[in-house]
């Protein structure tokens, strides 16, 4: 995509794979083929070592101590906020709230932004393809306020029907919440277009970026949404990390959510005053080592180059899609024109879990189940799908091994 100015050479996959220790594992005495990246990603040694080094050399609490260790720990932790701001092209580092993951990020918006605002009759707009993390928090605040969930439909191919989404942005809608990339279908939603429509109607748009941040360049200034949530463990970073980005003017109006240390200005039994964002929303000791690791993950991804990652993953997606289509009885669920490298599928006559177990026996890790997206499963009328989700470190050979194994186990089973 950057072809005009000095194209970077393609990724050297063998070198990259050597960066990820877990990829050398065997499973059931077979070399592992890890195709469950949308569930959680593997970590480069740089991330593992950053966490390790933090505990060995710098470990201290943040923002609380005047001693040297505390200064170093605070600097390392806050540096990850800077890196996230740059990674997302956020207008300001003070708009980055560090959370334990997407789930906590979306719940923060639900409890602190939506809950105080919603009235009976108000609506929150989601889509059929959302992850439970982008459904259940809204159901909880709707339950408490009398507001209602409204669902923008998708097509059989798994694309959001943009006209219907826009038509659903009626005055009763107080917030819209959409996945940037579907974790089941791989669909890349046209966020800039949705944000423009929402903005024209004065409706804030939350984007669940869990599956987009690891795989696409994210430019918040260009996207034009109001909230963006992401999770670190899918972004090649440690578990227990994530972030919410929100516009400064919105964050300033949001009351605190969790109470505790770090988020206060002054505590008195008669009344407490709160810190400014982002600290207002970061109660208690954060996952300091985890965020140091997340910073290393962002560095790693940026060094690879996000355009090159997209290129490589698109090539893998094409290869895998073509190969899977040749498997007898196989149907791909989700055939959007713009897709990330996530492929859900069904095989006629075979239960998803049976195939997943048999593939696992061959060393191939795919996910089977509802993928935390029950309503989407209900839309397709299936209890579960199989899902192969790719990352830049996967290879064409791995895909070939996966598809060959699938043909074999299907035959074995049926």
């Amino acid at each position, binding site marked *: 995509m950057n072809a005009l100015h000095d194209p970077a050479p393609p990724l050297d996959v063998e070198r990259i794979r050597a960066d990820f220790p877990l990829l050398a594992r065997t499973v059931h005495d077979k070399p592992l083929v890890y195709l469950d990246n949308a569930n959680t990603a593997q970590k480069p040694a740089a991330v593992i070592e950053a966490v390790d080094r933090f505990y060995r050399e710098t470990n201290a609490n943040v923002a609380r101590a005047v001693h040297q260790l505390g200064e170093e720990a605070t600097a390392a932790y806050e540096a990850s906020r800077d890196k996230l701001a740059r990674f997302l092209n956020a207008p300001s580092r003070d708009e980055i709230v560090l959370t334990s993951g997407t789930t906590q990020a979306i719940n923060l918006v639900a409890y602190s932004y939506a809950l105080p605002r919603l009235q009976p009759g108000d609506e929150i707009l989601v889509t059929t393809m959302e992850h439970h993390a982008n459904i259940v928090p809204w159901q909880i605040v709707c339950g408490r306020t009398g507001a209602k969930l409204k669902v923008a439909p998708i097509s059989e191919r798994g694309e959001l029907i943009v006209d219907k989404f826009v038509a659903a942005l009626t005055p009763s809608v107080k917030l819209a919440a959409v996945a940037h990339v579907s974790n089941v279908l791989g669909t890349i939603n046209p966020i800039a277009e949705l944000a423009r429509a929402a903005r024209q109607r004065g409706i804030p748009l939350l984007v669940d970026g869990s599956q987009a941040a690891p795989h696409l360049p994210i430019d918040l200034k260009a996207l034009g949404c109001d909230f963006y949530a992401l999770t670190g463990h899918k972004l090649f970073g440690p578990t227990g990390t994530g972030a919410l980005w929100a516009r400064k003017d919105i964050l300033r109006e949001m009351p605190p959510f969790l109470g505790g240390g770090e988020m206060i200005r002054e505590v008195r039994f008669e009344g407490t005053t709160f810190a400014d964002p982002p600290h207002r929303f970061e109660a208690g000791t954060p996952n300091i080592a985890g965020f140091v690791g997340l910073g290393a993950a962002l560095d790693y991804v940026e060094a690879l180059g996000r355009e090159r990652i997209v290129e490589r993953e698109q090539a893998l997606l094409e290869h895998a899609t073509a190969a899977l289509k040749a498997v007898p009885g196989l149907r791909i669920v989700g055939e959007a024109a713009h897709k990330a490298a996530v492929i859900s599928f069904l095989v006629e006559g075979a*239960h998803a879990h*049976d195939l997943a*177990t048999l593939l696992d*026996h061959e060393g191939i890790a795919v996910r089977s189940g509802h993928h935390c997206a029950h309503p989407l499963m209900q839309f397709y009328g*299936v209890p*579960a799908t199989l899902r192969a989700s790719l990352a830049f470190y996967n290879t064409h050979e791995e895909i070939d091994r996966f598809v060959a194994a699938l043909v074999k186990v299907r035959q*074995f*089973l049926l």
Partner: protein
Amino acid sequence: MTAPTPYPQIVLDHFRAPRHRGTLAACTHAADGANPLCGDALRIELRCVDGRIEALAFSGEACAIATATASMLGELVLHRDGADIGALGARFARLLESGDEDAGLGPLNALRPLQQYPARRKCALLPWATLCAALAGAPHATTEPDSA
């Protein structure tokens, strides 16, 4: 060296050609078992006489593990006293966890490889839970941990 397959031939045989598949004309007990997250749904119907299981049939859609287990279980429990089924079920659960042979469970020993596949044990347990529910007069059964 290769790990034991979770699908030995006998499991495949029972999956492909299940015994006792169908419904019973005159049933005395019945229950529906469902693991909705997994997508398994099984109905078990029984005819008991003097507390003994004289006929059994199962129907529904389920994965190979659940289907094969239901089929083999029919073989095992037919003509047994309903009162003994709970204890047998507990022995089967133990077999799945330990991977240890239990001669008294006959063909169900074929499911011992599930010791290596804990996430699939609920599939093998579903027919048992459904059978127990039927005997106990409960209409529904599930073996799904509630966070799937």
